[in-house]
């Protein structure tokens, strides 16, 4: 598969993940919904750190900011940082079995949500319900599925 195709694949999967993120659901399901876009960015950062990566995280975060954010830039910062973490540790994570990868994704999502929580508070839109952390758990649980699906779109190098 050529590199240009990989870039296109990344962009397309990110858009699909974005649509999944804003798809209307009943409230209880919406709270448990994993942050598909964040998981997707993490996936590409781990599997193909040279393409996408931090720019992908930043751009995806900006899209989330416009659709769901309180302040422009908060998701962008948090997601760029999550991507940075994944890129820094990609060799370590890639070598692990899927279960341990799930744990890493869970940790990365916790960091992401923690940054959002802090930024929400600083910018004057505090929101401290415990329910905001639920998606980190479901995100970790859904990782094997996401990795399986996205793994079909590229050859690992």
């Amino acid at each position, binding site marked *: 598969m050529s*590199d*240009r195709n*990989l*870039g*296109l694949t*990344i*962009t397309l999967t*990110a858009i699909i993940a*974005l*649509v999944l*993120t*804003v*798809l*209307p*659901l009943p*409230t209880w399901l*919406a*709270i448990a*919904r994993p942050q598909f876009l964040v998981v997707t960015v993490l996936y*590409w950062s781990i599997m*193909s*750190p*040279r*393409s*996408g*990566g*931090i*720019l*992908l*995280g*930043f*751009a995806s*975060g*900006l*899209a989330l900011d*416009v*659709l*769901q954010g*309180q*302040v*422009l*830039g*908060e998701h*962008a*910062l948090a997601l*760029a*940082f999550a*991507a*940075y973490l994944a*890129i*820094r540790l990609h060799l370590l994570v890639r070598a692990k079995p899927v279960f341990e990868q799930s744990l890493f994704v869970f940790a990365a999502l916790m960091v992401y949500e923690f940054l959002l929580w802090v*930024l929400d508070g600083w*910018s*004057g*839109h505090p*929101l401290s*319900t415990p*329910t*905001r952390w639920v998606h980190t758990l479901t995100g970790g649980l859904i990782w094997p599925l996401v990795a399986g699906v996205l793994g079909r779109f590229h050859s690992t190098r």
Partner: protein
Amino acid sequence: MAVFGTEVDRPLYGRGPSPGLRFTIYAVLSVVLMYYDQHGHWEQRLRYALEATAYPVQVAVNSPSAGWRALTETFQSRAVLRAENERLRAHERELELQLIREASLEQENAELRQLHASLPPPLIKNSQLAEIISVETDPLRQRVVINKGARDGVKLNQTVVDGTGVLGQVARLGPWSAEVILVTDPEHAIPVQITRNNLRSIAVGSGNSGELLLPYLAINSDVKSGDLLVSSGLGGVFPAGLPVARITGVRRESNQILAQVRAQPLATVERDREVILLEFEPTHPDAPAPNPPIAPAPATPVKAAPKIPDNDE
């Protein structure tokens, strides 16, 4: 770097900035964006443009449910349609009766108006119907997106109601869409008044739809279950007299200064597909004050009062 992935040939830790440096660059960019989103003005134009780019996504996401609705409406059974038709016809007869009464009232009103030339014009100058786009905003906050924006004449802080009561106000504006913050959002507060005794207070959103809190009523204040709350017109966003909520519970604990008062909003988002945007006649006495409070607050407050205004010269 139009498409992610054009830099595939570059080794990760070779040429070009390292991941750390790149993250730093984007982090600084994010912080700058956040700062200006809070304080600046030029970013409003950027935000406006970004809202416009988000609109296609919102419409695309909305289309399955909209399509499903259209489909079910097409294949609705004859009996259902007949029943609905019957109901609407009865409703129309009722409305016609009211209309006849209204015509006579209007005539009477006109005659009275001639006697009293200085009567104010009606409060609601203009109203506009908008549809809720079913797009998930943050599920933990109470916001909805509607399909009318600045191009349709929607303004920031405009009052949004449904048939039964106040729903919220416009919080964010795009060219074709707008985000409405509901009265039940934890960041929203609306100045209200109890109709029974004109007691004023503030109703704060609780974060779950279907509940408002009135945290600033003293324990001995005259409030009870079933009281109707209308907007008081203070605060300059909502006009006076729009129905908002009904008190559902009052708890008084003897060791506390403030009563715990809960209310249920009259408007319900779950049921609504359409909302109404109201525009008010600014000369009417019940209309909200012309200065929108979102604009940076002028430095009037408490300290300014005793000072002699000489700093302008």
